[in-house]
């Protein structure tokens, strides 16, 4: 087991243009498991809020009979937050408004399988 089991996933995401942060977060606790952040960014704050948002979106989609949430995006004047879930983990990307969301979405959905595989090993 490496000290940074999710490093390859996070590095792949933060290499995307306009992406400013990528985090693996525990959905239940809203705590950072691993992150790639810029200096001055508050990972704890992003993790807590993004995990809460994702969890509420997942529960709302389920309650509305829409099924599982595959991809969540929040668009705001200052930037975007994109998230996908895998098990109890949420993969969160924070980006500038100019980011190519389609590309980020593809990368996030591609990373879910890896997240589940590594997350299972980490938890197990």
């Amino acid at each position, binding site marked *: 087991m490496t000290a940074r089991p999710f490093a390859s996933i996070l590095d792949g995401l933060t290499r995307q243009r306009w992406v400013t942060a990528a985090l693996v977060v*525990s959905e239940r*606790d809203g705590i950072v498991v691993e992150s790639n952040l810029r200096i001055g960014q508050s990972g704890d704050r992003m993790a807590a809020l993004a995990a*809460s948002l994702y969890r509420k979106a997942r529960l709302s989609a389920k309650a509305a009979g829409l099924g599982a949430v595959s991809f969540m995006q929040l668009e705001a004047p200052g930037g975007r937050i994109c998230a996908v879930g895998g098990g109890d983990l949420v993969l969160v990307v924070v980006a500038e408004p100019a980011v190519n969301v389609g590309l980020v979405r593809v990368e996030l959905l591609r990373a879910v399988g890896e997240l589940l595989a590594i997350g299972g090993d980490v938890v197990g």
Partner: protein
Amino acid sequence: MQMTVVEAWIEGPLKRFVDDAGAELALLLHPSGQVLAQHGFAREVDVMTACALAAGIQASSAELGRQLDGRPFRGLHHSGRTRQIFLAEAQSPRGAFVFLTVFGPESSLGLVRLYFEELVKGLAAAAPPLEATAGPALAEHFERDLNRNLAVLFGRA
């Protein structure tokens, strides 16, 4: 659920914490166990019990931290099946307080920690200057003060 406070300046920051973090119960107390504010408790005896336990746990964990790490542990989290407890020291210009909160699945430890930091800042900003030096924690008037605070919180004052 009703929030009640012994000193009015505590109410604003504590209400913001409860609203933002989605806490079910919240308790602010002096390290001696004297209650200062509560949210969500229905009975005096529950507040009294929670205060005594919280003060005892905080004192024990702080001492454990000193023994192990040379400095006190400042926070404690316990996750139950449906509810979780967060207990931590809240520093303010009026000294250290102990803060206890209980939250359910609607909230998370991350949110509680985030808004606890804001609560501490809010208390520091709202605290009026100390008029006199506080007396010893376990003075002869401890029980009288405890009963007075409980009476204020539960509308008997």
